[in-house]
């Protein structure tokens, strides 16, 4: 089979490259001027934003991935994913930089080797190797679980 | 596949309508058969008005909705199945069958 059955959107957090299933991505946004902080929530929960009249919570992927540097730069963006195709489960992921859309094959994924990082995310869909760069494909279900915990 | 579904729907529905019409054609429909008949007509017309439009039987569905509504009322005890009503129902069903046949032939073209 030569058909490309997997479309990914890759992004950078620090020096690492991650990706999510592009089909679940709704929007890519610049960081808005205000993110309304919701009191009494975990640090990674940055707050809520107004996305075309709807409320979308935003999490800081840098914190979820255990990265210490959390300063917003010119490339910092929010990837809004919509895992269950319902308003309720929309979620913004704040990342350092959105990279590109990758068309690939499920079979290209290899098992992700985690090196005992301090991040909160423990499972990945797999890792893709393109031009000697490793792209770790994020398991959105796992992210949701972590946030809801 | 769709053509097949249409064909099946068309055939079974027309057959059921004809069955009902035979019952309605009896000189007098016994009173104890009324509930059963009512239910039968209601269910069938309900089905037609529900499924008909998506299979292209628009006119038939429109017509059957009238029957459905009336028989809904009868079923709910809000209207009596009078001999006149039975007669008009028979008429309506005849027209319904005819509409089905016409709409089916148009679809075939």
């Amino acid at each position, binding site marked *: 089979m030569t058909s490309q059955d997997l479309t990914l959107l890759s992004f950078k957090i620090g020096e690492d490259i991650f990706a999510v299933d592009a089909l679940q991505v709704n929007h890519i946004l610049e960081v808005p001027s*205000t993110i*309304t*902080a*919701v*009191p*009494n*929530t975990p640090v990674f*929960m940055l707050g*809520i*934003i*107004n996305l075309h*009249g*709807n*409320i*979308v*919570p935003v999490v800081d992927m840098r914190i979820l991935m255990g990265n210490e540097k959390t300063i917003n730069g010119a490339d910092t963006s929010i990837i809004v994913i919509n895992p269950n195709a319902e*308003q*309720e*489960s*929309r*979620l913004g992921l704040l990342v350092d930089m959105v990279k590109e859309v990758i068309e690939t094959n499920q079979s290209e994924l290899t098992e992700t080797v985690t090196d005992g990082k301090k991040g909160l995310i423990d499972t990945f869909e797999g890792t893709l190797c393109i031009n000697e760069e490793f792209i770790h494909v994020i398991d959105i279900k796992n992210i*949701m679980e972590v*946030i*809801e915990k | *596949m*769709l053509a097949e*579904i249409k064909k*099946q*729907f068309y055939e*079974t529905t027309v057959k059921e309508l004809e069955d009902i019409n035979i019952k309605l054609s009896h000189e007098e429909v*016994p*009173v*104890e058969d009324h*509930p*059963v008949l009512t*239910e*039968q007509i209601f*269910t069938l017309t309900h089905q037609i008005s*529900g*499924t008909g439009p*998506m299979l292209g039987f628009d*006119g038939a569905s*429109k*017509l059957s909705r*009238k*029957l459905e*509504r*009336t028989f809904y009322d009868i*079923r709910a005890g809000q209207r009596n199945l*009078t001999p*006149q*009503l039975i*007669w*008009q129902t028979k*008429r*309506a069903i005849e*027209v*319904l069958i*005819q*509409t089905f046949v016409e709409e089916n032939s148009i679809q075939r073209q």
Partner: protein
Amino acid sequence: MIDKFKAKFVEESMDNVHDLEEALFLLEKDMNNKELIERIFRAMHSLKGGGAMFGFNHLSEFTHHLETIFDWVRGNKLAVSTDLISLTFSAIDHINHLLKTGDLTNDEEIADQKAFIQRVQAFLTLTDSPAQKAGMTSVEASGAEAAIATKTYLISFIPQPELLQNGTNPLYLMDDIHALGQAVSIAYTHKVPSLDLIDNTSNYCIWQILVNTAESVNEIKDVFIFVEDECELHVDQIAETNIIGKPEINVLIEKALQHNLLLTPDDFKSGDWNKVQTKEPEEKKKVVVKEHKISSIRVTSHKIDELVTLVSELVTIQAQLSLYAENHDDPVIGALTENIQKLSRQLRENAFDISLIPLQSELMRFQRLVRDLSKEQNKDIDFVIEGGDLELDKNIIENLTDPLLHILRNSIDHGIELPEERIAKGKSPKGTILFKAFHSGANVIVEISDDGKGMDTEYIRQKAISKGIIEADAVLNEKEILELLFVSGFSTRDTVSDVSGRGVGMDVVRRKIANIRGEVTIESQVGKGTLISIRLPLTLSIIDGLLVKVADNQYVIPISSIDKIYALDPAQIKQSFNNVVIIDKEQVPFIDLRKVFNEPQHQTDIVQMVMVKSEDKKSGVIVDNVVGEYQTVVKPLGRYLKKQEIISGASIMGDGTISMVIDTSRLLQSRKNIKVTG
């Protein structure tokens, strides 16, 4: 394409199954009801047919056997029995399963279905049921053939042009009237246009018919039943006797035709017969045939959600526009904005009204639960429903079902006693569970009460102490003790029972209800019974709120829960021990939102305190300042922030910023818990 039909089929079938279940319930109470049997048979029949058509082969096969059973029943070859009804109930569950999953793929399930079918077939082999010979006493037609008086009626049949489009042949209708008795038809053709203008599939004619008949007005109207949408119809009695054919009448008809003026009942008032009015006919008495348009259409709930969302967006944008208009002194924009505001308000009310559905739609599941569980536990329970036609926001209903099921389970499992136990207590052996829904102000109250054991507060207290939820010496009144049931980790039973222990306790019930901004309370009396009451907002989406500021954020407090607003010196609250301030010589407990939200201490000279009440609790809520009153659309925070209990949603303000909506009852509860444990 085919998937669309499949989905449609499933949707329709779900309705069918619902109907089936309802019929079965009724049949259980009236086992010889032929109509119900027919209804069930028909439902099975259409499931079978549709199933085959849309590739649900297992469904089709399965329902085929049930159809056979009910075919036998309706042919008096098999009697309805409790066993048969129970079997059919389980069959309905299976049908539901098949509809949801499509064809079975797993061997085990296929084997299960086979076994089930064998059970069904077993019924067909045990057919000798002499009991069934029901003595069909046919009602004899009242033989007394009294000389029936006939009357003369004037029928005015004024069809619309589209009369002919559905295959109606109006000539037959006149013919049918003639079958009722002596009749004469008057056809008015003056509206038929000349050749260059005619659209010959339209109807241009109007009829009046005089008929002398013994039949009633209704019987006459029945003739026109299937054209009633396409016509205006009047039937008036004009004489107690047969006047058709009288010369005076013929003159009347002649004149009417000559002048193309419809006859009116007044024309027939005796003595006036010769005087034919040449003036315009009296304005015809309108209606008679009431509008009977299609009363409902099917729309997917998804579309309704979308509509509500769009309308909410419109309201938000309209607020932005209002803000703009306020800041720009342009009278034209001002006026336009006002109109848009009015329109969007109407639209909003409409849209929310559409999303209301009757509670009824879920009641079947409750009835089913009560029936099944009481059978299983050998309890005798009368389940009474009041107010099932009450309408609620569909999102509320969706979220309400699980908690209600749980409460019902509790009532059956822990509440209602076994019949012998009840007799021993001097109660009727049959227990009652009352399900009651009604409006109360802007809220809807749903109550589930039972006349069972009730709750032993002392037992609950001890249990709470042993679980470390309260201190051994805590002084609690009865109400507060019952509140403990809602504390997470509390369960009145040690063993997790099959019925109500499915991981959902009252704490989850409360949380789920709170998700839809509802409140739950319990009242109970040992030996007498328990009442659980749920208070719900009418719709989820719009509230009148007071906008307040706390640190950098803005919050909305629902106006409905606000009593008064005071200004205070922050020093007053700093000094206060026990979070109580003295106002008008009264001790008022308060909650400082800065503290609750972990914000830094107040730096200002003045703060404001909003008096908030919820149920029977009342407390001051300290905010930085009050901004004003707003009507806002409440948006859900989504699944990730459900843990944030005090905030129940968010609102987008006219300028696009977000303010968070405070759940006052939660807020007050958070204070109370401190008191209980402290």
